């Protein structure tokens, strides 16, 4: 054993950027404060992930370890007009975070019947049971240092509570804006969707700075029986940023969760998605697209846990890596002994656009039941030379042809997005070089 390699504890890392320990809240019986205290106390037992950990094997986050980013100071003064260009046309409800902190003044949570949105501290203070029942219960922090850290700072987070049988037609836009450099923001969001309710959530990360900073986000979601949630995730952080995110979703009886996660930004990004199909006939389809270039690293880890019988899961994950970029996909599907008649399908397709780019992929099935339908597969390839020639023979230059085919590869995932303006925005972004004005 190499005794020269010292395990840096997570606590040490935090101390280095926070010039001292993070402190637990004052003694309090408040649910939120207790949760935070527990998380703070637990952090001492956790270490900073390294490539010697199986779940971090392909992803070296040493640069993050060396980045001593403190907590954000006072929130940057922004007005809604600074952000309007990022608003989604279709959205009515908008929740804005700046540097990890929920900003009611920039948000638009105008009362809709059956929809409650407020800061976690307020929701806990008024004892909203949906919040105290689920907050901190879905996103596991005991084995995850980043979730623990986020939990320690979660008082700045927001809760979205939807009562039973409510349909929110317009997408709810949750916008995480980074403005300060060299800070670590820990935004937190809890989503509780009542039985039979239906919503679309657009979770978006973007930056008003080109500089380095860290986002360490946690989203927890609980879908009650027969609820239906579309969840679109757009990660467009600055090219210098570190982005660590955990999303944990619990899906009850006959509820249905569809997510489409797009990763475009950050220097190093890591997205963990934990899905529990917690009851019969629960369904999920979780699709993803990673599109990176230059020196970017983007890692997506997903876990789909089939706990009860007759649940269905679908997954299509695509990675496109150009330049010297490095994409990672690890997708684990667990089928528990009780989960008979599970129907699970996973597909991972990868496109390498340059000789220096690399993609690591690790699809895994762990099946403990015998009457199941499960399949998975992975492919890796390059742009089709005949298709490139076909486009060139119609007058498109090589760069445009490559661009168009690259977009086309990703379009299969982008086309799943049920919000037109978001779909269009992504198409424009990716096709920017091809568009003819």
């Amino acid at each position, binding site marked *: 054993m190499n005794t020269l390699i010292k395990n840096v504890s997570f606590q040490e890392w935090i101390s280095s950027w926070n010039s001292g320990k993070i402190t637990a809240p004052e003694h309090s019986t408040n649910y939120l404060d207790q949760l935070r205290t527990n998380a703070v106390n637990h952090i001492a037992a956790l270490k900073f992930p390294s490539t010697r950990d199986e779940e971090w094997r392909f992803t070296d986050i040493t640069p993050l370890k060396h980045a001593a980013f403190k907590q954000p100071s006072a929130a940057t003064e922004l007005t809604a007009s600074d952000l309007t260009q990022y608003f989604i046309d279709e959205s009515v409800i908008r929740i804005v975070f700046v540097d990890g902190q929920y900003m009611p003044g920039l948000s638009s949570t105008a009362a809709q019947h059956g929809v409650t949105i407020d800061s976690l501290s307020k929701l806990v203070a008024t004892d909203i049971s949906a919040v105290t029942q689920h907050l901190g219960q879905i996103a596991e922090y005991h084995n995850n240092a980043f979730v623990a850290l986020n939990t320690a700072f979660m008082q700045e987070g927001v809760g979205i509570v939807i009562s039973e049988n409510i349909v929110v037609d317009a997408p709810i836009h949750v916008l995480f804006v980074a403005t300060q450099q060299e800070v670590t923001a820990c935004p937190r969001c809890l989503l509780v969707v009542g039985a039979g309710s239906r919503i679309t959530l657009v979770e978006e990360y973007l930056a008003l700075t080109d500089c380095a900073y860290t986002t360490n986000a946690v989203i927890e979601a609980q879908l009650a029986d027969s609820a239906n949630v579309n969840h679109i995730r757009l990660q467009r952080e600055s090219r210098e940023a570190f982005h660590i995110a955990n999303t944990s979703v619990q899906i009850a009886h006959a509820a249905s969760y569809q997510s489409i996660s797009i990763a475009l930004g950050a220097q190093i990004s890591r997205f963990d998605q934990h899905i529990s199909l917690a009851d019969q006939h629960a369904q999920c389809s979780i699709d993803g697209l990673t599109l990176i270039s230059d020196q970017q690293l983007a890692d997506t880890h997903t876990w789909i846990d089939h706990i009860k019988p007759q649940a269905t899961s679908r997954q299509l994950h695509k990675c496109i890596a150009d330049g010297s970029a490095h994409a990672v996909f690890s997708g684990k599907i667990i089928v528990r002994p009780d989960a008979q008649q599970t129907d699970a399908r996973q597909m991972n397709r990868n496109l390498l656009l340059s000789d220096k780019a690399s993609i690591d992929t690790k699809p895994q099935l762990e099946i403990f039941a015998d009457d199941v339908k499960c399949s998975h597969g992975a492919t890796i390839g390059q742009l089709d030379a005949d298709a490139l020639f076909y486009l060139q023979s119609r*007058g498109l230059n090589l760069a445009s042809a490559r661009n168009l085919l690259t977009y086309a590869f990703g379009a299969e995932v982008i086309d799943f997005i049920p919000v037109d303006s978001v779909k269009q925005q992504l198409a424009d972004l990716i096709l920017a070089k091809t568009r003819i004005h």
Partner: protein
Amino acid sequence: MIRADSSILLEVHDLHANVEDTEILKGLNLTVKRGEIHAIMGLNGSGKSTFAKVLAGHPAYRMTGGEILFNGMDITSLAPEERARAGLFLAFQYPVEIPGVANDQFLRLAYNTVQRQRGKEELDPLEFDDFVREKMKLLDMNPGFLDRSVNEGFSGGEKKRNEILQMALLEPMLAVLDETDSGLDIDALRIVAKGVNQLASQDNALILVTHYQRLLDYIEPDYVHVMEAGRIIKTSGKELALELEAHGYDWISGDKTRASGVQP
């Protein structure tokens, strides 16, 4: 004094080309003037599609000798898109399916690229939509094909019509149609032929690669060439196609005395 003959659109001289390390084209000669229609016939594997792709600049085929002059310009070092913008068009024998690229978007991109090259007006999506629908009417094409991915799931005949639609949009100076007739039923053939004939003028020219006489009933060639083993071994008038239909290729095959490749 040597003067370029402006009536000559394409001049191919002693063309040799390889795929990987195998020589496929072995000294091909062909001259095409403005206003002419040429047919190239020949057995499978004789190199017709290879010739078409070499003309269009496919990177998998390496030219090892000879020259290609298009409109008086040596195009051998031009990229495929530069040849296309210069007015060369290839209707593919096997059009490529491109999932994820909408046909209308692709058509507009191609159209505007060529328009810009010619210093002509580009069209925005709405203008283009009107324009392309008119062109589709001429080819009796369902506008539904605009919303689908390029060639994806199209039948053989639908793909061929989509090729001719592209030709109609790009208005090339020289179009090479590689077996555009195969896979078309007689009605479709008539429609495609009508479309092609409408585009033919005294300024442009056409090379039809085909196996069958029947296309030539609708598009009348000025010359018929027979290709074998990478060369044109016989050139004659349109009656040659009828002879080939009646007697096959055996009677000319390997008969080097008749090989010419340079039309009268």
